[in-house]
């Protein structure tokens, strides 16, 4: 599984990085590598069943009071 993920990531690097490298786009290269690193890390941790923080939980906490208000209004 991990081998597959790493292979996919290197495949993406192979097709996307050389043109950026040639054009000397430093910022793009940085952004690309950071995003790819995060992506690979996340995929590996999902495949190993490591718990990842869920952004929906944050949304849940923030909007729960508003949702209760709405429920009471429209009951």
């Amino acid at each position, binding site marked *: 599984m991990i081998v597959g993920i790493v292979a996919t990531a290197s495949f993406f690097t192979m097709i996307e990085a050389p043109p950026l490298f040639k054009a000397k786009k430093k910022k*793009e290269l940085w952004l690309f590598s950071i995003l790819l690193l995060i992506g690979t890390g996340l995929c590996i941790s999902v495949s190993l069943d490591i718990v990842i923080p869920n952004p929906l939980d944050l949304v849940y906490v923030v909007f729960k009071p508003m*949702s209760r208000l709405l429920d009471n209004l429209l009951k």
Partner: protein
Amino acid sequence: MTNNVKISIRQFTILMMFYTIGTTILVIPSTLAADAKQNAWIAAIVGWLLGLLIVYLYFSIGKLYPQMTLIGFLEHTLGKWFGKLVSLIFITFSFLGASTVLFYLANFMTTQVMPETPIGAFIILFAALVFMGVRLGLEVLSRSAEILFPWFLILFVVSSILLIPEIEIQKMKPIMEIGIKPTIKAALAYIGTASLPLVLILLIFPSALNQKKGAGKAFMIGTLLGGICIILITFLSISILGADFSSRNMYPSYALAKQINIGNFIQRVEILMAGMWFMTIFFKASFYAYGVVAGITQLFGCKDYRPFVFPCGMIIAAYSLVVYPNVAYMMDFDSTVYIPYVITIGLLLPLLLLVIGSIRKKMSSR
């Protein structure tokens, strides 16, 4: 950025229709029936009309600065740092949207169609398709929408016609029994899934259109057509399955297509219905995914979004397995917290932006 991407008015109309239908067709009959019972179709009509107002709001925002995309507009009106912060909210929204849409489809596949295949397989397959589409660009996506449109129409019309003999009109009665509040609640659920996510269309509207004239009309017509499809499906599922069964079923329109039985010969064509969703969900997912990628690209001031599509794709695919830990969480989230969340992002924030933007414009023109 989208400077050199041009899509025609007709393609834009079709895209808007697909976006409106998107996942809505999959889940909304059940949500509507839970609140508005046998009046779900009335609630859908109310939501449809409200949706037009919302589209008009987005259209007016787009008209303020027609050359700018949403991120550029935010930075222009709110200042550099605050603008970036607000754009981050929109990017998070589209990120969550992309992940949840992928989960919707994969969950549907594992629970209803192919129960023995693990959910990850569907996510990888569908995410690969979506991100290939986004990588190829908006033009390719809108052209494929143009190609798929007749097929969608054929499938939709055929399945609706085949369902007509099953309609039992007494399931619709009594028509005006449900009060105004549950109807509004159901209509809010409708605009939450169908209309308010369209705020992300400001990323391409109207700067990516090849002619600005008629853009607003195309926007309206697209959402109108999509809304008609959803109202029809809701009507059919209420009148055939009944309000109670529709509200308890997770995918009522799929259960609906199972009812098709013409002379004991044409049966079990529910995969036709699923085929329609694959198309609409594909466009909705790629629209969200485009929002994430283009948003991140513009946030960091890069020119071309294409190199970042695949890395972002990996993040979204990974998160689609995380955002909803289980289906109970999904149902709870979608029916309670999602609605105020999407109202804040799709209605309150754009309204605020419209006010600030028009004040800014007036001040600078003076």
